[in-house]
């Protein structure tokens, strides 16, 4: 018995090791549907399960229309483009093998999108090492001055959102007393420090700073404490059902009157909109809520092209059209097309060749032709021109660290959940706030 068990153990172990190797080998060499060398793959590495499961689909919704636009124009030098999800479960330890497997078994990876604050710290080094251009949605300030040459960020770091909110509150509304209500998660807490520094630096008062546990059944005590400080406005980002619960209780405990509240760009999101309007009513959100958002106009030829493709992929992903006004979705779409055009321009599928050109396609070099559709870009390149991509999210301005920022707009929702721009921060305003906030 004893001896036979040892034998079984080894047998199974050896069998297993062989299986693993076989699987790994399959993944790297043979076409597994998406792995053929004649097609190119865009990896969407993001949380698809776990507490941040809402993020993955928003990024997947960026990939599908980009792939459609590229494929309809004949692909990248004839190579078709497809999308695949890689679930990080929103945590670094699961993200690492997901990223390693993605890299190892898909030699045709042209770019990777996603990598949120949940996993960027563990995923970005892997992708950089593997020479895969990435477009990340992390707001972490550690990437403000990154040495990863394959890293691209089309959204500003979180603290800039905070500065924009401060600017909006002080310069547009003349609010003087601000309550900070942020979730105790990674993404949300990043706003608190910079916002407090900027507010205090500019002479406003922080009446209360609450870090609230997400997903709690109620926050009435917190709300009562907050109301007792009589703020002019509440700054918030608490995702999942949390903001909905909290704001419903604000309205309830303030005798049915909602205080003005202001969200980060993460609150410009269909999921957040449906949760909060469900809890406090659409009209209240329309009347009392404002947010800062990346300078996206949701108009123009680049946006129209994106919207057309996004609506068209609903056959594959029914809820995709819901993301038509989500900044992150637009920007990742832009990133993918920039990478594709960079490949066309360099006539190379080797990322070490085309990676550096992504920046040129985004910022435009002298004499470059502005294009808003992938097809137009390919045509221009065939004519020997350099191109500048101005897509769904408008102009791109990569700095030396491949961080692109466009300034902020001030927005509110309309009754159907579309965002309406009602103002923008000037360069001078932004600079003053950033200086006060120590950014």
């Amino acid at each position: 018995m004893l001896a036979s068990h040892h034998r079984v153990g080894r047998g199974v172990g050896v069998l297993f090791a062989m299986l693993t190797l076989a699987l790994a080998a399959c993944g790297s060499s043979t076409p597994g549907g998406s792995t053929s060398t004649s097609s190119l793959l865009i990896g969407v590495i993001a949380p698809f399960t776990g507490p941040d499961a809402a993020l993955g689909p928003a990024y997947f919704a960026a990939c599908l229309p980009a792939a459609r636009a590229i494929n309809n124009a004949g692909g990248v030098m004839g190579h078709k483009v497809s999308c695949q999800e890689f679930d990080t479960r929103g945590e670094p330890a699961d993200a690492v093998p997901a990223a390693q497997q993605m890299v190892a078994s898909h030699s045709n990876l042209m770019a990777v999108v996603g990598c949120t604050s949940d996993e960027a710290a563990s995923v970005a080094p892997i992708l950089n090492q593997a020479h895969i251009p990435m477009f990340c949605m992390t707001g972490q300030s550690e990437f403000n001055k990154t040495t990863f040459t394959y890293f691209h960020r089309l959204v500003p770091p979180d603290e800039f959102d905070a500065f924009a909110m401060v600017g909006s509150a002080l310069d547009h509304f003349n609010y003087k007393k601000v309550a900070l209500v942020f979730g105790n998660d990674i993404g949300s807490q990043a706003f608190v420090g910079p916002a407090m520094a900027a507010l205090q630096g500019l002479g406003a008062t922080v009446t209360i700073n609450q870090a609230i546990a997400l997903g709690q059944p109620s926050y009435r005590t917190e709300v009562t404490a907050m109301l007792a400080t009589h703020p002019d406005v509440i700054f918030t980002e608490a995702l999942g059902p949390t903001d909905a619960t909290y704001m419903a209780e604000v309205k309830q405990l303030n005798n049915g009157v909602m205080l003005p509240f202001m969200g980060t760009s993460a609150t410009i999101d269909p999921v957040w909109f449906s949760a909060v309007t469900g809890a406090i009513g659409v009209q209240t959100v329309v009347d009392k809520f404002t947010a800062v958002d990346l300078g996206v106009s949701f108009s123009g030829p680049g946006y129209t092209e994106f919207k057309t493709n996004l609506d068209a992929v609903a056959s594959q992903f029914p809820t995709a059209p819901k993301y038509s006004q989500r900044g992150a979705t637009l920007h990742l779409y832009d990133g993918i097309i920039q990478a594709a055009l960079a490949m066309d321009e360099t006539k190379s599928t080797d990322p070490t060749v085309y990676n550096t050109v992504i920046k040129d396609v985004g910022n435009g070099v002298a004499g470059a032709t502005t294009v808003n559709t992938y097809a137009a870009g390919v045509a221009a390149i065939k004519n020997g021109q350099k191109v500048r991509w101005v897509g769904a999210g408008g102009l791109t301005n990569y700095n030396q660290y491949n961080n692109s920022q466009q300034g902020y707009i001030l927005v509110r929702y309309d009754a159907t959940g579309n965002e309406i721009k009602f103002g923008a921060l000037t360069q001078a305003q932004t600079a003053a706030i950033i200086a006060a906030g120590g950014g």
Partner: protein
Amino acid sequence: MTYYLTTVLVYAAVDILACLAISLQFGVSGIVNFSFIIFQAAGAYTAAVLSLPRDTANGGFQTYILGLNLSFPLPWIAATLVGALLAPPIGLVVLRRLRSDYQAIAMLVLSVIASLVVTNTPAFLGGAAGLSLVPQPLSDKFNPYSDGYLWAYTAGALVLAVVVFFIAQRIINSPYGRSLRALRENEVAAKALGKNAVALKMTVFVVGGAIAGLSGAILVGFITTWAPSTWLYPETLILFAAVIVGGRGNNFGAVLGALLVPVGFEEATRYLPPFGPPGLIPALEWVCIGGLILGFLWFRPRGVLPERRRVFAARPQPVVAGEPNAGRD
């Protein structure tokens, strides 16, 4: 390829360590440590804050205690010690007088409390954002992205797993291991036979904690980042599933379980062709892990490699002949 293979192998080593520890506690001794993952987390955090420089470095984007910038292997040794030292206080709260299933949920609650405390105290261990840019061991002397380094790291992790495997073998094949199994089978009877149940449980709790701490150090040294989302209590459940599938109380079973469930099953599902809306496959993966546990507990509750029966060498002159049970096994 090197990256992926080394990643799989390092994770295999980490999961083997964790499963060996759980098998010692749960399989051999009958202690259901549903707070297991906090021991691994304690090791990881310890190794991280000891190998990181002060939190004012790197622009001060993260906050944490210590930051002693110690060189390898001190952080790993400390991680092992902290894992061990965490055991007595938790053990004293939970292990003394509670019924076994009651112990299990009490530990589950402890696991949640620990996560809440760390998440809500950013100055302690980085709060919800956790710690990143944790230096890899000896990364000041070698290039941590080179193939050689990765294979050396993998080899080191596997060697540690093998060493711990032999330690676990020594434990379960010893008279001490037999006492642990006796305790698992009937605690009251074991006490009446002179077994100090609290001390026995506590030693195995400490040993398991040390192994878990080491596994955390190996993991964090490889992935260079650690956060509360890494050690939510479902992670413990996956490890229990592995031990149940592999065979509890049998170290070969623990190893097999680690290779089949957290490594094999999760890696294999990555190769599924995509289908359905985004998020469907990952959700189904979790459904399968749940189903795997239920299936095994139903069809093969003792696992693929059950605890083996221990037969002692026959005495010089066999006494028995003709008895139906004589010489079985």
